[in-house]
C-alpha cells in the first residue's frame, strides 16, 4: 500500500471515530450530569456562554432553549431515591417540601424528552395544584390514583423534570438533597 493511502485511511477513520464517540457521548449524556443530588441531576450553566461544549451539546439534545439559572433551574431524575431506573409500570411517591422559587412544576417525559400519552391527558403537576406547598406528595403511577396523580402511560422508562422558576436565590445555589423531593418506589 502506498504511504499516502495509509495516511488517508487513518485520517478518515480517525475523524469518523472521533465524531462517532462524541455523538454517542452526547446521546448517552444526562442533563446536568456533572451535578448529581440523590436521584436528581442539575446544572447551573445551561444557556450561558460559560457552559462547556459537552453541556451545551447535551442541553441542545435534551432540553433545547433552556433558560439560564437566574430565570429557571432544571432538576432531572431518571432513577428513584434508591438509584433504580424509573419504570412506568411501577408506582412511586414523590414527596417534597417547600420549593424556593416563584413557582414550580413536575413533568414526566419519556427518555427522548417527549410528553407521554395517557388517558387523563395529564403531563405535569404544578405548584398551584398543591394544597400544602410545605409538605406535598405526588403519586406517579400507570393507573389513576387519589390525590395528585401523574400518569406514566405504562412506558418502560421515564424521567421526571422539576422546573423551579425564578428561584429565591437567583439561581446561585443548588437545592440540597433534603430540599429536593424524594422518589420512593411503592410497588410494581
Amino acid at each position, binding site marked *: 500500500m502506498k504511504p499516502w493511502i495509509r495516511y488517508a485511511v487513518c485520517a478518515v477513520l480517525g475523524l469518523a471515530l472521533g465524531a462517532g464517540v462524541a455523538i454517542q457521548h452526547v446521546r448517552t449524556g444526562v442533563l446536568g450530569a456533572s451535578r448529581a443530588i440523590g436521584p436528581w441531576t442539575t446544572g447551573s450553566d445551561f444557556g450561558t456562554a460559560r457552559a462547556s461544549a459537552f453541556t451545551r451539546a447535551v442541553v441542545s439534545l435534551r432540553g433545547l*432553549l433552556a433558560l439560564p439559572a437566574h430565570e429557571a433551574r432544571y432538576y432531572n431524575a431518571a432513577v428513584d431515591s434508591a438509584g433504580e431506573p424509573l419504570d412506568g409500570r411501577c408506582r412511586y411517591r414523590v414527596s417534597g417540601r417547600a420549593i424556593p422559587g416563584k413557582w414550580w412544576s413536575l413533568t414526566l417525559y419519556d427518555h427522548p424528552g417527549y410528553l407521554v400519552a395517557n388517558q387523563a391527558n395529564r403531563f405535569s403537576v404544578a405548584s398551584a395544584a398543591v394544597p400544602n406547598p410545605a409538605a406535598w406528595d405526588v403519586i406517579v403511577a400507570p393507573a389513576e390514583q387519589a390525590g395528585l396523580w401523574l400518569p406514566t402511560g405504562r412506558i418502560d422508562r421515564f424521567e421526571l423534570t422539576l422546573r423551579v422558576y425564578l428561584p429565591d436565590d437567583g439561581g446561585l445555589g443548588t437545592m440540597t438533597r433534603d430540599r429536593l423531593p424524594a422518589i420512593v418506589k411503592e410497588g410494581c
Partner: protein
Amino acid sequence: MRGWLFPLLLGLVLAFLGYHLTLVQFPRVLMSLATHRIAKGMGYNAMFAAPLATDKARAIVRPSPDLAYSSCPFDLSNGPVLVDVEPAPAPYWSLSVFDSRTDVVYVRNNIDAGNQPIRVAIARPGQPVPDGMTAVRVDGTTGIALIRILAPDRAGFGAIDIARKKSSCKALS
C-alpha cells in the same frame, strides 16, 4: 508495520480533533434544525403561537405543558428584527432570545418589566437599531426569540391565547 506508525498517530490526532469539532458543532446543527422547523409554519421573522404541549408535540424536546410558547425564528441577514411582547393575563411570562449556539443573549420576564410591554430589536453587531429601542446583539444571523407564558389552568387558556397573539415579530426593513 513500521509504515503505519505515523498514519496511526495522525488518525489519533484527528480522532481527538473530530471529537471536539463534533461537540462544538452539535448544538449549532440542532439549533439550526429547530429554527428551520419552526420557520416552516409561518416563515422567518414572524411570531408563531404554538398550542399547549401534549404528547403529540415533537417540534422541541422537553416542552413544558404548563407554558404557552410563542416563538419567532429570526434571520438577521437583511437587518434587525423587532420583537414586541404584549402583557398576558398570567402570573409569569417572559421573552428570551437564543443565538445560533443556543446561548441565551437576552431574557426579561413580566416582573422585571413591571407587567409592561417588552420591545426589543435583535441585531448583529454594527447593525443600527431605532433610537430608544433596546438592542439585543447576537452573533450569527439566525436564532429564536421565545415567549413563555404560564398557563396554570388549561381551561382558562383562552384569555392567554387571545392576549399572546397581540405579540409580534417582524423585520425592520
